[in-house]
């Protein structure tokens, strides 16, 4: 079951097409990564999901039904460029923002007290926002985003501007929220956090969707067929047994241990390679190099641009 779908969404600005026939499916209960270089159209897509801007054409479905304005109450949005009223008191402001999301005054106050205590910012309730450190402001913004218990959370570059401690806290909260059944869409440049958190990703560039799907399947799909073998023995003997199906990319020797990177030229299984090596050397470790999201990102974007031009 998908919580959100866009179907053939097109958004044009005067000089460019920000989104060109983008269709995505966000499965319910997943963490969905929205990736892409700067200016790819991520923020435009996020704004469309939030009904801040409307697409020129295309369809938006929330839980399988055509999106309606009141769906904003089921969405929590933490924009990339975020701020608060500087002269307003923290508690008052949080209540105001929560009420805009449909909570009653009483409900908002009760929930805020819980979260302020949890994040240990209760003493700042009556302070003006301008007296808060940036980290504390971010905590307040995060609380306000999730306070109305939305089923879909959208974080645009959530980790930018967070210090490592807050970023870690945020990661944990995202995982907790997923555990509670929320769906999270987040856009980021931080590929480390994508590998750590995401179940599904989509990658867009120049307003076009390049890949989408289960992150494990994608990583398998983009496997490089490079094996990393550490062994005790002679590199020359290894070179000798590698036939035309394998290619020795490089090797390093540290004390008596040689580590070689071997690429399988055709899709030949790791067992074949092992059976070739075992008679020659003493294997210490053997594993396949899985591509990092970073590698996949760069590869997909470069190929996509090459195909375009």
């Amino acid at each position, binding site marked *: 079951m998908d919580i959100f779908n866009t179907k053939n969404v097109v958004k044009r600005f*005067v000089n460019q097409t920000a989104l060109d026939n983008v269709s995505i499916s966000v499965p319910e209960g997943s963490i969905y990564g929205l990736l892409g270089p700067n200016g790819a159209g991520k923020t435009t897509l996020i704004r469309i999901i939030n009904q*801040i801007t409307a697409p020129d054409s295309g369809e938006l479905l929330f839980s399988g039904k055509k999106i309606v304005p009141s769906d904003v109450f089921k969405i929590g*949005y933490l924009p990339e460029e975020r*701020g*608060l009223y500087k002269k307003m008191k923290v508690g008052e402001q949080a209540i105001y923002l929560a009420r805009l999301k449909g909570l009653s005054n009483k409900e908002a106050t009760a929930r805020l007290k819980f979260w302020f205590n949890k994040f240990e910012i209760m003493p700042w309730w009556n302070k003006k926002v301008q007296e808060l450190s940036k980290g504390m402001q971010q905590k307040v913004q995060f609380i306000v985003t999730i306070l109305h218990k939305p089923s879909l959370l959208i974080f645009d570059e959530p980790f930018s501007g967070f210090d490592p401690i807050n970023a870690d806290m945020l990661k944990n909260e995202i995982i907790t929220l997923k555990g509670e059944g929320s769906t999270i869409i987040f856009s980021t440049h931080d590929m480390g956090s994508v590998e750590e958190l995401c179940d599904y990703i989509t990658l867009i560039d120049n307003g076009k969707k390049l890949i989408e799907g289960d992150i494990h399947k994608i990583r398998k799909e983009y496997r490089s067929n490079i094996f990393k073998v550490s062994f005790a023995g002679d590199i020359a003997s290894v070179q000798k047994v590698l036939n035309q199906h394998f290619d020795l990319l490089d090797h390093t020797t540290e004390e008596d241990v040689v580590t070689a990177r071997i690429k399988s030229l055709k899709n030949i299984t790791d067992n074949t390679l092992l059976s070739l090596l075992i008679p020659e050397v003493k294997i210490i470790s053997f594993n396949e190099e899985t591509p990092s999201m970073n590698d996949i990102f760069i590869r997909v974007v470069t190929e996509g641009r090459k195909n375009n031009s």
Partner: protein
Amino acid sequence: MKKIALILSREYITRVRKRSFIIMSILGPILFASLMIIPIWVTQMEDTDIKRIAIIDSSHIFRNVIQDGEYLKFDYLENTSLTDLKDNFSQTGYYGILYISHIVSYDPNSVILYSDKQPNLGTKLHISRALENYIKDQKLQTYEIDDLDAILRAVETNINIRTIKLSEGGGEKESNTGIAMALGYISGFLMYMFLLFLGTQVMRGVLEEKTNRIVEIIISSVKPFQLMLGKIVGIALVGLTQLLIWSISTVILVMIAQAIFFPELGLTPTEQVVTQDVMSANPVQTPAESSSPEMEELRMAFATLGNINFAVMIGSFLFYFLGGFFLYASLFAAVGAAVDNDTDTQQFIFPILIPLILSIIILFSIINTPGSPIAFWFSIIPFTSPIIMMARIPFGVPMEQVILSMVLLVAFFIGTVWLAGKIYRTGILMYGKKVNYKELWKWIRYKT
């Protein structure tokens, strides 16, 4: 609607609680009340010292001609030379020396008042009037006409012009131009102040939300248009609150001041206010000297006051305030949304300010000629009508003109709110772009 109410109550509450609002609420009435009280007070305080003036008359014909006034005493000195008196002026204790040369009857410039202070107009008038009358009488006597005094009294006429305004259906209303002018000027100027001051507040508020980057959080919950409207209505209510506070406390202050300074007048506060208006528009008279023409003037003023329909005045002020405010505030909001910082606002603000400034420049000529074609056109054109029509209303404006002006104002403010909404919607999410008019036009043409 619930969201707009939330937004406008935030706008309203944060502004009303601001220190500047509280200070303005206190200072405003004090300022207004002192503007009304001080001129009266000053005229009452004036010249209660007895002034002695020495007369040196080289023509020897003006003995006992200049009568002592309440605060003016004259000493006719026979055997003193002007030079001696001038040399010892500081020891004599005189306020001034009046020197009358012997050629006075044919040279009007031969009377000199020496003083170490600046003699006021009243003193000079008192002297010149006495001398003129005496010389006139002397000259008339040379014609040797019998019963001249009686003849002169018989031909003496005093014209006091009462203005009565004819209204349709033959009704007559007594009007007083001074009061109408003052009311027109005050309401026009107040309108200008409110439109300008509150309009800029709207712009600042929008710009603050944009530069703070809170706007994207808010418009993920509400439509940009709702946010803009909530802000404009909220600030309009702030203006109305300020106006209400000012009116009530000015009335109270004037009442208190009146009880302290002029218990003898016993006027109601509004009458007091208007009395002052009459007085500032006419030569000031101290109550003691209020002889019949002044009393007549005052009586007419009150008659006019009774005839000015305050319900109409207040009603139309509210209408033009709200209409004009929506018109200007939406434009100001669009400017705030279009730019990134305060300094960039200049180029867009200027065209908005032109009609406002123009209105205030011509305001004075409008209250002098409220029926002129200029007055007509400027009170019809929506950008100037809030100020100019308010200046005209105390004089009475034909109903069809008022209706035309109101309809146009409403049509225009709906139009500008709609246009501004489009600029606003795009502008608040646009950063780091140098915006010009061509760009704004593009934004207006964007589909949602």
